[in-house]
């Protein structure tokens, strides 16, 4: 243990604890800008400087471990003055457009400027004009707002292993951009949006499409319907000051109707359909030996894109089942429209997703138009929904509860846990076990695949055969799992796994790139806990037992993997170049 003093308060912390973390233990908050709890310190900004007694220079608290006998001062006149100068220098290179910035009110730089009481421009502003990158349609980069903290680059390279963004050049010319004068859409970017979730300013944001939705809602020729993704229900509350994990499902149903949506569906319903299709696919491959093993989940569009660019040798292993978003879209414009006698051409489907890549998924392949129309018209993130609710004048948190619309609204506990890493696997195993054995699993809780460990493994006994499953989240964790499969294939050995789930974002969708700001592991845990509570609270916890799903197959699709199901609910994959240019 290290014993030292911070602002004259005694502290005792394990060796290796940074001054920044040690200070928190005595309720001292050292301001930071580049530091993020998910990431290694880069010591880029210099805001967190402190002084050690006897030392002749200021040291950065984020990357300096506390040592025995140190006497740290975190706030005195000089230190605060230096911090303020550093901040003024950063601001001199940042556009003064807070009022029209997407991050207005949620910007870490803006907050710091307010905390430091910066009320005039101390240094003449110089901002180099650079056009924004809007090429992906999922995320928008405004290079002028970049403060070169390096978070997005660490996220893109280390956490996600995507390597779309890089620091280029140096000194005053340093910039964060895709390498080689190309747009983000031409780069290896998979649109996961983790860069936007970690950016301290408005330099990387989701492509805001709220205006498109307002226009649709006011269009008398459109029948607007909406779906809510599993994870959104436990995160949207954060934008209204509620703790992470607060389940607002029924308030959301209410609020969306008040916004003007004619029907409110739940993506959880489609998650149940995805499981019925995917579990049937698994049984086909596992029990009937038709198709490649391991089966790999495909409901995460960033993962799909990453696979098509980097691991296309696994295309045959990919589940052809569409993601819940796309399944709900196509079912609304076929099944629902048919049942209610609505012209599907007039149906306008909006989806509310935790994810920036879901915007990309809408037009991914021609199968996304299986209804004969664009199955989902527009996808917005949790952050965009929160903005719409704030604009609408609805007192969201005090709304009465409501129910989802029938036909595509009922969901089971298995559907809701799709939003957390391991959830798809757990839901699929519950149903696959039933399909293979005709019996219900003794314990529906598959604890081995829950939690935030990067790669999780588990075994389930199905008819005396051990089914080995693996779950990876955060794209940097994928390669090891796939390499184990490749090595076994090469050596002619049995596959190490039968079923693999991958989610691009750490924590799964609850940690998605479009979720409310400020994510870290503590928050991911609380959000996931909210979903697992929802699962426990549900009477029905297996997808194949969902009464509306049973009705869907009886009255419309016939049976899982039927020709009609294949036409509407399945898709294909193609190898794509890593760089388009």
């Amino acid at each position, binding site marked *: 243990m290290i014993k030292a003093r911070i602002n004259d308060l005694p502290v005792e912390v394990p060796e290796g604890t940074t001054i920044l973390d040690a200070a928190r233990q005595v309720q001292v908050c050292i301001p930071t800008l580049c530091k993020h709890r998910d990431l290694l310190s880069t010591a880029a900004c210099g805001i967190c400087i402190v002084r050690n007694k006897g030392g002749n220079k200021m040291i950065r608290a984020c990357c300096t471990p506390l040592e025995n006998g140190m006497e740290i001062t975190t706030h005195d006149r000089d230190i605060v003055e230096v911090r303020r100068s550093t901040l003024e220098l950063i601001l001199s290179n940042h556009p003064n457009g807070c009022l029209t910035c997407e991050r207005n009110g949620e910007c870490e730089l803006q907050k710091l400027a307010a905390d430091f009481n910066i009320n005039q421009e101390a240094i003449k502003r110089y901002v180099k004009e650079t056009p924004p990158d809007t090429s992906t349609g999922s995320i928008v980069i405004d290079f002028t707002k970049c403060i070169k903290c390096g978070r997005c680059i660490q996220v893109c*390279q280390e956490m996600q292993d995507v390597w*779309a963004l890089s620091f280029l*050049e140096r000194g005053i010319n340093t910039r964060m951009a895709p390498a080689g004068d190309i747009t983000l859409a031409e780069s290896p970017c998979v649109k996961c949006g983790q860069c936007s979730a970690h950016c301290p300013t408005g330099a990387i944001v989701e492509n805001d499409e709220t205006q498109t939705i307002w226009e649709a809602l006011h269009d008398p020729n459109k029948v607007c319907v909406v779906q809510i993704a599993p994870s959104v229900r436990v995160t949207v509350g954060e934008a209204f000051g509620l703790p992470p994990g607060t389940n607002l499902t029924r308030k959301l149903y209410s609020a969306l109707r008040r916004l003007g949506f004619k029907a409110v569906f739940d993506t959880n319903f489609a998650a149940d359909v995805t499981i019925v299709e995917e579990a049937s696919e698994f049984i086909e491959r596992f029990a009937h030996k038709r198709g490649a093993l391991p089966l790999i989940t495909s409901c995460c569009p960033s993962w799909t894109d990453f696979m098509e660019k980097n691991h296309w040798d696994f295309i045959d292993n990919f589940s052809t089942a569409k993601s819940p978003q796309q399944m709900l879209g196509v079912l609304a414009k076929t099944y629902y429209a048919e049942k209610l006698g609505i012209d599907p051409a007039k149906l306008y489907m909006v989806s509310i997703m935790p994810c920036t890549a879901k915007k990309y998924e809408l037009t991914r392949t021609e199968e996304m138009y299986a209804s004969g129309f664009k199955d989902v018209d527009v996808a917005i993130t949790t952050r965009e929904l929160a903005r719409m609710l704030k604009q609408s004048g609805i007192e969201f948190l005090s709304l009465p509860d409501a129910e989802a619309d029938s036909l595509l609204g009922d969901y089971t506990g298995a559907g809701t846990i799709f939003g957390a890493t391991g959830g798809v696997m757990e839901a699929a195993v519950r149903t696959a076990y039933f399909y293979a054995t005709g019996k219900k699993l003794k314990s529906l809780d598959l604890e081995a695949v829950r939690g935030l460990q990067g790669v999780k493994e588990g075994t389930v006994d199905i008819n005396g055969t051990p089914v080995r499953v693996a779950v990876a989240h955060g794209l940097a964790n994928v390669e090891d799992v796939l390499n184990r499969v490749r090595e076994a294939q090469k050596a002619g050995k049995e596959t190490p796994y039968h079923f693999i789930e991958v989610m691009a974002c750490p924590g799964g969708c609850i940690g998605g790139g479009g979720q409310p700001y400020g994510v870290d592991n503590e928050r991911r845990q609380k959000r996931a806990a909210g979903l697992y509570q929802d699962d426990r609270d549900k009477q029905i916890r297996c997808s194949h037992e969902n009464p509306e799903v049973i009705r869907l197959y009886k009255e419309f699709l016939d049976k899982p993997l039927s020709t009609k199901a294949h036409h509407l609910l399945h898709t294909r994959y193609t190898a794509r170049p890593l760089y388009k240019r």
Partner: protein
Amino acid sequence: MISNLNHDLNGTVAVTTAPAPAAHPAGRAAAITRIVEKHGRRSSRLVPILQEVQEEFRYLPPDALALVAEKLNVAPARVFGVATFYAHFAIKPKGKHLVRLCDGTACHVKDSIPILDAIRRRLGVDARHPTTPDLMFTVETVACLGACGLAPVVVVDDQVHGAMTPAKGVALVESMIAKEAAP
């Protein structure tokens, strides 16, 4: 891509007059493969590999960088990051002759800038476009060549010329143009 060649000590690294760049990418591939193999395909040798590739082509064409990344099994983003970080590396083609004007403190106070302006005017180049369209000349400034006693200094290829004036600078360029034009 804007190369950051100005105001840096690294600019003093000698750039010899290399053979004309291999125009066809296929020709490049063979040279790059040879260089990467020579360094055992080790990504830790990225900087010396890029130095040799640049010696070969006089600059680092984007497709060459992409090929280096592929051969070393590292992300192109990393190779571009390194290639744009060091002032020594050029992402845009450089001329056959490199004219470097010292703008270190000593040269600057002895009026180096008018010399630079005169040479640039004569060759029709500027800071953003430092290379003549015929790829014959590139004009750069460097921070200090360590020859302050001779200030102001112009270095053409590897020849140092001291006590320059705008007129002498232009004459120097004229003589090189004449030499190139000679049969």
